[in-house]
């Protein structure tokens, strides 16, 4: 009987080899695809079950991982969630992640190469992997002021420190509470996400940098004015300012806001043209300067460049080869000119910073769990958009806008504010215009530059102008920034 027993032994061996092969198939060969299966909650547990670093604003953790007694171990918690949501984004087992939660994921979850030595220490000491804390440039009072000033209106506010590019405030309204997406039930998280996605007001969009770009309207006149100064114009140079500008080769015309005249005569100074935001003058000026000069100036301010702060910023757009009527339209920030509020804030900041564009950034310092500095952002220049002299001249013109022009609502007693309004047609019939205000203060030595966009005129509808709707918001933000930095009038 021994021979058949040996044969049975061989069969047994084959059975075991089959099992070993199948175990290898499950645990090795197809482990990745099984791990990526959305029905596999273990991957979520691993991804979400570790201590994730906090996101810190002004020394306070606005996003934290709190220990909880469930399989995930930690609950991501957002303090003032709606206030910071456009920046922090969400971290969800349902729809995934966005904002800094996504952009700085490797630092927050501790897997970044920058944290190699920290991880090595954890490995030796046997402690679990911990993420780094990400400290933001945001100023809590400025962010709060911007958020409060926006109220129920749709739009965005960006405040920069013109000297460094540090982002002091980045608000997008309406917003949402990321805590609702951080629930430990993927079905509930997905339900909340779908509801936010279906919301017509677009709460998930960070209007300051992402998604839609907006026609900048008259705020684009700053770019045209800078190009004019570069071309040899001065603040006092007289330029044509007809009541009605006929566009060459078409029957179309350009008029001023409300059909008004820009001055007593046929001509106004460059300063006055900006002060009263004269459409006909700037449309004509744009045609005179030619599109390449204007496009070059816009690009010097950062238009069309890739930018990550470290969130990805949508590129602001210019028309490629516009004809004369299109150049006229573009000169007043219409036609195919599109900008993000961040881009407009960068323009204000560069003018206030002697013409130097600083790269905007949100993350100031990254610290490992032992509070050692892992990364520290050094302000970097993106180049000289206009000469210091031209910047000074443009500053004078922008002060006139606030003191004696379209934006008296931005005046702050004892502080000289330089600004520019914008009221942009959306190109959709019957839709109220987008209103803009960009500014910096104090004009002589600015510590804050701000851009405000309110979609479709906010609560004023078709009556809205940048001066009426956006300027008061900018003023509130500037006041908060000055107070936060101890600047008084």
């Amino acid at each position, binding site marked *: *009987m*021994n*021979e*058949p*027993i*040996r*044969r*049975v*032994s061989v*069969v*047994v*061996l084959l*059975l*075991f080899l*089959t*099992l*070993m092969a*199948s*175990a*290898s*198939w*499950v*645990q*090795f060969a*197809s*482990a990745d695809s*099984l*791990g990526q*299966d959305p*029905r*596999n*909650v*273990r*991957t979520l*547990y*691993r991804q979400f079950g570790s201590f994730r670093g906090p996101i810190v604003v002004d020394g306070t953790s606005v996003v934290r991982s709190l220990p909880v*007694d*469930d*399989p995930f171990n930690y609950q991501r918690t957002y303090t003032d969630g709606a206030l910071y949501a456009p920046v922090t984004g969400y971290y969800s087992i349902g729809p995934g992640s966005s904002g800094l939660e996504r952009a700085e994921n490797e630092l927050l979850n501790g897997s970044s190469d920058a944290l190699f030595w920290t991880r090595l220490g954890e490995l030796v000491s046997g402690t679990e992997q911990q993420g780094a804390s990400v400290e933001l440039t945001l100023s809590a009072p400025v962010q709060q002021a911007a958020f409060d000033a926006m109220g129920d209106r749709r739009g965005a506010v960006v405040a920069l420190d013109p000297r460094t590019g540090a982002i002091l405030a980045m608000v997008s309204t309406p917003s949402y509470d990321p805590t609702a997406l951080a629930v430990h039930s993927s079905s509930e998280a997905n339900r909340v996400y779908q509801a936010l996605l279906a919301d017509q007001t677009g709460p998930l969009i960070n209007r300051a940098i992402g998604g839609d770009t907006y026609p900048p309207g008259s705020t684009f006149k700053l770019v045209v004015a800078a190009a004019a100064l570069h071309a040899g114009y001065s603040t006092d140079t007289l330029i044509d300012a007809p009541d009605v500008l006929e566009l060459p080769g078409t029957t179309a015309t350009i008029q001023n806001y409300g059909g008004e005249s820009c001055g007593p005569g046929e001509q106004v100074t460059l300063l006055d043209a900006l002060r009263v935001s004269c459409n006909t003058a700037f449309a004509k000026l744009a045609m005179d300067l030619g599109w390449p000069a204007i496009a070059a100036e816009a690009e010097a301010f950062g238009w069309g460049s890739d930018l990550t702060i470290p969130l990805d910023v949508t590129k602001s757009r210019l028309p490629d080869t516009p004809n004369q009527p299109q150049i006229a339209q573009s000169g007043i920030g219409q036609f195919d000119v599109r900008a993000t509020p961040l881009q407009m804030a960068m323009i204000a900041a560069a003018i206030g910073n002697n013409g130097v564009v600083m790269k905007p950034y949100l993350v100031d310092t990254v610290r490992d769990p032992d509070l050692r500095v892992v990364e520290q952002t050094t302000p970097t220049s993106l180049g000289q958009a206009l000469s210091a002299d031209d910047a000074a001249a443009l500053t004078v013109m922008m002060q006139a806008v606030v003191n004696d022009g379209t934006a008296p609502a931005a005046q702050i007693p004892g502080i000289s504010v330089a600004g520019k309004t914008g009221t942009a047609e959306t190109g959709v019939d019957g839709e109220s215009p987008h209103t803009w205000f960009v500014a910096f203060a104090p004009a002589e030595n600015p510590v804050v530059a701000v851009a405000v966009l309110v979609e479709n005129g906010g609560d004023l509808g078709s009556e809205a102008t940048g001066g009426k709707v956006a300027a008061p918001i900018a003023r509130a933000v500037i006041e908060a920034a000055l107070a936060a930095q101890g600047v008084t009038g």
Partner: protein
Amino acid sequence: MATVQEVAVRVGRRSEAALLVIACAIAIGARAFVDANAADGIGRGLAIYAGAVVALAVAAHVLVRLRAPAADPVLLPAAFALTGLGLAMIHRIDLAYADRGRDTHFGTTQAGWAVIGIVGAMLVIGLVRDHRLLRRYTYTAGLLGLVALLLPLVPGIGREVNGARIWITLFGRSLQPSEFAKIAFVVFFAGYLVSNRDTLALAGPKVLGVRLPRPRDLGPIIIVWAAALLVQIAQRDLGASLLFFGLFVAMLYVATQRLSWVLVGVGLFGVGAVAAGTLFPHVASRYDAWLNALDPSVYDSGRSYQLVQGLFGMASGGLFGTGLGSGSPGLVPYAESDFIVASLGEELGLTGLMAILALYLVVVQRAMRAAIGVRDGFGKLIAAGLGFSMALQLFVVVGGVTRVIPLTGLTTPFLAYGGSSMIANWLIIALLMRISDLARSSAAAPSRVAPSTSRPQDLIDDGEEAHA
């Protein structure tokens, strides 16, 4: 033919002691990792547990030295290590369930069953001095096996769980009689086949080149086997019917050396499997859940949920596992019993699972070696049958969990939660040790069995009670 003589000269009790030290270290170490990673840390409970493990190991080893001094030194430590790993994992799954709000005490209960199983095995080694005694009870064993199989169908004590009526409730404890029936049938098959193998193999008509046995020779065994199979099909115990079928075919082959019968058996099985898939919806559903496990419609219907969750668990374990106490085995339904292999795969990784499979392979191959070494045909058939049944059972379970074959309910020997399985498998270890003791001591001292060297080997195989 027999090449084991030179190996068997060393009885290996020192090796057994050394291996038992390792087995105890595995059992206690695994439990310590679980406590450290998933519970409140290592405490007094571990010390008590370690004391009990060491005491049992020492007692078992001493008894083996006294009563089965030549027994295979690997069987006891391997079973010990597997039992210890299973206890640690079941304890760990209690903790995982507790995290999910379930209050279970599988670990404590199973530890009790393990003690009973080991003590039972020691009693068998102590009391049954010669396995050949069992041959007297050939037909009794067959009858007992059938009765045990039928018990779950008896109203009052039978119990149905998840569609399979294979449990009975006795004294407040549930038992799975098929685990014991398996041993009884091995004894019956062995006893019957060793008496009738020559007539089975040599007498009878030849059809298409295959010599078929005479009905009167094959009759009793076919009746018992078919009855067992029918009962299991009625109880919807697919895994056990597969196991019994395979066991019968293997033992028939060992007894008669007729490969053609194996082919007939495998062919019959194939026909049966296809027929069952067409006739019975619950079988067809199993096939579907196996072949299309990851298909969303099958998964969402819940039919492949357990299987897929088990695969996810094993996949997340990867090569080296999450570490004992650091995975999420509690996500898989029946992680402590049917899917304990997936739980182990998750926390110990492919490496750990390979090691566990290797342990089983060692046990099974040692059973086969005992079958080759022992001189009586009855012992050969029992050892080979028990060894093969363990291998096939493991194949059915692990193959089901790793998607080689459709998932059927069978317990994983020594590892899975369940008292019947634990006791039955320790009884198997005891029988194997008893047979290996005889095999190795008779090899060392041939006078004990006193065969006449002038007789042909085949007759020696039949033992002293051989039928001509």
